[in-house]
């Protein structure tokens, strides 16, 4: 599967291309990010190859609202998409799905993992509830989400599914519970879409797997660019140290975190730390997210999607039954009397409980705010990382920022080392970077370019709606099976049979075997027709012999009634004095013969025997006739056709000149395509001019 031509194009894909165009451009693989191209958020990557179309992820951009947050769906025709694959439940990967399913003409199938589906439902309902936009800006409502649930199908890790000839399966991605990397196989070309992934095993998730097969194209996230994560134990220690020291100084700790995903990991860390430090037992830990509470059932159930450590613990007690952590409904229920640790959403401190607490606590320097993950550009969390002197509160007042701000990333995205290592193991010939800010992505690209300098790897960093086009020369393999395969042919021998294509696999077989190897069947249609005829049977025989080369009459003893067999195809039986019965097996030539026989028999009845001598045409005359016919047919097909001096036909099409030898059928032409065409056309003409072949 060698690629021949590659190159980024600034051209929009043409999703409306007709099927004819699709076959013509069949070998062209197009990848277009509709979102997450040189940005983080609204992941959505369109891919098309051989007329099959796959869409990866369907997210929204958290920094925008309404239609502006959607990926550029108007670049494509949703009705042409065969399969939509969702990697994980985060809003920037799944939140435009209800819109896409319910408000567009998408008719394909959607897949995600079991745990993703269960959390998706809860998360999006929550999202609809908390997003404060006007009704007309609402992309979808609760009902749309419920309806979308019925359309979503589930896939388990490693399970291989096939839709419309597109084969796909998924690997553990390690980013959040249920996060998957999808491998798509269309006609032998494999594309890996990593989604968000992490190669580091943590408290509850497995590290991303390295696929068994090298993909031809790897579409990979680049969130962290060339940054390197601190080792996990160091990060955990910093995290617990900050919290411990803040608390022991009587301060409060705010952890703004997205309700699902990393929050569970942090809760596991905190619960374990508290367990090991009895002196902290009187300090409460709250996680202020009803959503996280609701999702806990999902975490408690899909233990099998997590790592061995959790599964081992599970044998004793469910590790997601936290002992030291209590839920917090709202700020009204919060009794803010002394040191405490509160984990609240949203992670960006845009609004909601985390913002309320931040406003309340930011002026006191005893307090601390720990930002545990990636923060999106344009949010308050991003602003306070740079530790400004003052911040604007929600009520518009300006307050001093005295609380300590710590940025300790637990974000389960791969860092540069992981990405490089992952790609090095896979060595895909094409790498497409998505899901990263332009700068970070650019740096990562430089780094990868130098890493893969000696290999043939090609790197792309398309912007949104910018297509990457690659060509894969498809090598079509077929399997010859059954009777046709009993003898393996030598060079030059012909192989003829039915070519059956299912998905992208080809089989060649004899017609008799069709039923054996496929669900198709063949049929023989026997036709039997009674033709009124009162004359002598001998007359028919006589007349037939004038027209047909082969008219046989088997002895009456074998057939009971006088019988004639014309060209071993049509049988005529003289069953009664008033009619004859003709029988043959349907096929174009036999039908033609039988029609002529019928016409003849009817004519005998009408006008009586009339003998017309047959003009024996000489071979030469036949030849001349044939030349004339071929010539006139060629003129009608190709236009400018003349007889050359050497007796060959000279056919001129535009600038190409072809010479056809009518006797041997050989064609001389520089243009391969034209030569093939003329050859085919000539073959068909020969078939029409020559006498009926023997079956």
């Amino acid at each position, binding site marked *: 599967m060698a690629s021949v031509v590659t190159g980024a194009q600034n051209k929009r894909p043409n999703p409306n291309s007709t099927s004819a165009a699709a076959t013509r451009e069949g070998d062209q693989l197009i990848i277009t990010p509709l979102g997450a191209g040189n940005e983080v958020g609204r992941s959505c990557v369109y891919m098309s190859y051989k007329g099959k179309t796959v869409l990866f992820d369907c997210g929204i951009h958290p920094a925008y609202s309404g239609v502006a947050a959607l990926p550029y769906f108007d670049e494509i025709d949703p009705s042409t998409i065969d399969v939509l694959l969702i990697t994980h439940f985060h809003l920037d990967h799944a939140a435009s799905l209800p819109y896409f399913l319910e408000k567009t003409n998408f008719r394909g199938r959607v897949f995600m993992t079991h745990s993703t589906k269960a959390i998706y439902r809860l998360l999006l309902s929550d999202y609809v509830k908390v997003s404060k936009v006007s009704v007309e800006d609402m992309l979808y409502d609760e009902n749309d989400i419920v309806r979308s649930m019925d359309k979503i199908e589930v896939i388990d890790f490693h399970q291989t599914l096939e839709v419309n000839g597109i084969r796909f399966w998924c690997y553990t991605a390690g980013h959040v519970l249920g996060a998957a990397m999808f491998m798509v196989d269309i006609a032998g070309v494999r594309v890996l879409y990593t989604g968000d992934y992490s190669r580091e095993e943590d408290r509850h998730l497995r590290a991303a797997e390295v696929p068994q097969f090298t993909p031809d194209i790897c579409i990979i996230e680049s969130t962290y660019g060339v940054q390197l994560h601190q080792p996990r134990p160091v990060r955990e220690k910093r995290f617990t140290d900050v919290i411990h020291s803040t608390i022991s100084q009587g301060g409060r700790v705010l952890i703004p975190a997205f309700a699902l995903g990393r929050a569970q990991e942090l809760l596991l860390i905190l619960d374990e730390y508290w367990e090991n430090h009895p002196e902290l037992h009187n300090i409460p830990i709250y996680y202020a997210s009803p959503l996280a509470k609701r999702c806990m059932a999902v975490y408690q159930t899909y233990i099998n999607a997590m790592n061995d450590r959790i599964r081992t613990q599970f044998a004793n007690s469910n590790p997601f039954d936290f002992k030291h952590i209590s839920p917090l409904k709202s700020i009204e229920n919060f009794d803010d009397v002394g040191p405490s640790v509160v984990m609240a959403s949203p992670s960006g401190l845009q609004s909601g409980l985390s913002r309320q607490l931040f406003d309340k606590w930011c002026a006191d320097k005893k307090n601390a705010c720990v930002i545990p993950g990636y923060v999106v550009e344009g949010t308050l969390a991003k602003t306070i990382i740079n530790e400004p002197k003052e911040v604007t509160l929600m009520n518009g007042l300006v307050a001093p920022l005295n609380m300590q701000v710590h940025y300790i990333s637990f974000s389960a995205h791969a860092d540069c080392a992981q990405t490089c290592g992952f790609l090095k193991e896979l060595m895909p010939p094409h790498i497409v970077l998505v899901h990263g800010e332009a700068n970070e992505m650019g740096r990562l690209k430089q780094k990868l370019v130098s890493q893969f300098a000696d290999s043939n790897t090609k790197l792309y960093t398309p912007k949104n709606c910018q297509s990457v086009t690659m060509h894969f020369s498809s090598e079509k393999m077929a399997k010859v099976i059954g009777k046709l395969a009993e003898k393996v042919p030598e060079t*030059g021998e012909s192989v003829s049979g039915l070519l059956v294509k299912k998905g992208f696999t080809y089989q060649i077989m004899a017609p008799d075997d069709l039923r054996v190897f496929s669900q198709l069947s063949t*049929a023989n*249609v026997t036709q039997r027709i009674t033709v009124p005829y009162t004359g002598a049977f001998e007359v028919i025989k006589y007349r037939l012999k004038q027209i047909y080369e082969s008219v046989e009459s088997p002895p009456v003893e074998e057939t009971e009634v006088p019988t004639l067999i014309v060209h071993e195809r049509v049988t005529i039986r003289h069953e009664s004095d008033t009619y004859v019965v003709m029988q043959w097996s349907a096929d174009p030539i036999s039908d033609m013969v039988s029609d002529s026989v019928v016409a003849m028999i009817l004519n005998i009845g009408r006008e009586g025997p009339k003998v017309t001598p047959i003009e024996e045409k000489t071979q030469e005359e036949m030849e001349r006739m044939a030349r004339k016919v071929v010539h006139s047919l060629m003129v009608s097909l190709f236009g400018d056709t003349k007889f050359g001096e050497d007796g060959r036909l000279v056919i001129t099409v535009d600038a190409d000149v072809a010479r056809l030898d009518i006797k041997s059928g050989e064609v001389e032409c520089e243009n391969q395509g034209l030569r093939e065409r003329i050859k085919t056309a000539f073959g068909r003409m020969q078939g029409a001019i020559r006498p009926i072949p023997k079956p």
Partner: protein
Amino acid sequence: MGTSVQVTPLSGVYGENPLCYLVAIDGFNLLMDCGWNDLFDPSLLQPLSRVAKSIDAVLISHPDILHLGALPYARKHFGLSAPVYATEPVYRLGLLTMYDHYLSRRQISDFDMFTLDDIDVAFQNVIRLKYSQNYHLSENGEGIVIAPHVAGHLLGGTIWKITKDGEDVVYAVDFNHRKERHLNGTVLESFVRPAVLITDAYNALNNQVYKRQRDQEFIDAILRVLRADGTVLLPVDTAGRVLELILILEQYWAQQHLSFPIFFLTNVASSTVEYVKSFLEWMSDSIAKSFEHTRDNAFLLKYVTLIINKSDLENYAGVPKVVLTSMASLEVGFSHDIFVELATDAKNIVLFTERGQFGTLARMLQVDPPPKAVKVTMSKRVPLVGDELKAYEEEQEKIKKEEAVKKASIVKVEEVRATSSHLSESTKGDSMVIDPASATASPKASSHFRGQMDILIDGFTPPSTSVAPMFPFFENTAEWDDFGEVINPDDYVIQEEDSNHMVGNGKSLDVKPDEASVHLLLDSTPSKVVSHELTVQVKCALLYMDFEGRSDGRSVKSIISHVAPLKLVLVHGSAEATEHLKMHCAKHVCPHVYAPQIEETIDVTSDLCAYKVQLSEKLMSNVLFRKMVENEISWMDSVAEKTNEKVFTLLPPPSAPPTHKSVLVGDLKLADFKQYLSTKGVQVEFAGGALKCGEHITVRKISDSSQKGGTGPQQIVIEGPLCEDYYKIRGHLYSQFYLL
């Protein structure tokens, strides 16, 4: 020629013995299931013992004794060391089933076929797969792909598809096409034309009543007894069909707001349900859906109480109740004891939901008419007292002493080795710790040192280079280079401190048996088994209802004929059922039906020929496909050209090819055709099996019965006098086909 396939049954043909079959694919030996029965009869495993060492992989299809019971024994005694493949639930529930059996046996006998450790060891090298996961085998099995698919019947139940070079061997035993409360139906029907299908004839003669009717009767029978103050005993398996029964009861109890207590009593009941709760993705769509919508786990049981101790039942002695308990065979386990208690009271009922295994108490009770009385052996483990205890202790003491002596010698050997190796290397001799893992020195080595054993004091051994005993001494030779002492950077690396507590102790038992069993295991107080025989008058009602969750005879036949394998191998089923199904299939499905005897190897290598070719671009540009259902089809003429050793390239023929016999492709159904004609305004009706079109024309399909499911083309006859209608109808008929 195709891939060579041989099938050799090792157990479980022409009868209901456990399932165990050897399938060799191009010399790669796959063991399909490794079953035993509830009696743990070693004679059944004789054939397995002869081939166990040559097996390359074991595929397990269901988590019950009949499918995997012999794994620990075969591993321990026969040297079966091949990797085992199973789905996650089969692995987990299979493990629990084995624990339950072991613990039940242990309570009443000095069971020594295998121990809990043997079970753990046997299950340690199970490779767990997901449904439809294509797993590529490596090494000898290169090119073989195995994939588990949904079988129904039990949670995680598997039909195995083994593919090599595009040829499929499908092993499907105990499948269920019906959708149940907790399981989806099998996907067997989606496989079309595998080269070989291995399936069972177990249910070939049984037919089932409707599910709803059966469920109602089941509930009615239970309620009748409960309302008459009786107790219902449901002998069940540990973690298989019992799940379905629990859901039926839960659902009905919830609907009717019943308050009769239900108990689920096995040695591992609470772990079972705890694990089952985390297997939602393996269950039916409706369970998954209800979880996604309401987060209600179907196995969050509200009415069924999980108990692991029979004594918990004592508080409910006189109360009407339902008890689900293992084993289904009544041979051992709680069901055995409870049966003996209940049998004498006519109020009670023993409701069997599956046919008992051959030769077990359950089977005896299922005969018609039921026996009036049965003889049972009651056994109990009692602690040793008095003289017996003393004798036991003395014996233990002796054994301990012997072991201590032996161990000492081993330790010594180890130390000698360690010391000598330290001396010879003498570079980083900083450790006195002896690796405990290598403490199991070979007995040969220990015997070698036996001579010196007596004169050496424990822990002091002379290095081989010294002449007299001395303390171990290791010289720390530091290396120097131009920059000073050479340092090892590894010494300064901060270790991942939590690496050992992150990844749980690999050797630890990853299933926690319930407390009672732990108690039993840890209970080291010497005990013995006392047993006495007694005759139990069977006065209670006995009832059998089919909740086995297997496809019934009729469905099995229709599924097989739909799958239409090229070759069919029948196993597991009474001789009668096997013969019946064999006859049926030979007539209606395919001519190659085999029902081998134990250890009879049959060769089901397909006589299919095949070779691969490459389709050249030039050829394909001239091919015009026609779409038919899922396939696209075309006639192709080409010329082969050898490109290298194995692969041919097909090129377009140099000259016009000779015309071929035309082929009509399509599947004509007369009924559909009738519909079609009537939309075209032709008067049609069926008359004597033929379609009468218009006044004179008849269209018939000639089908001789031997052709059914066969591979020949359909024969269609159109007949009539010469008239306009004839050509019109012929035209319509042609339109139903593709002419190639």
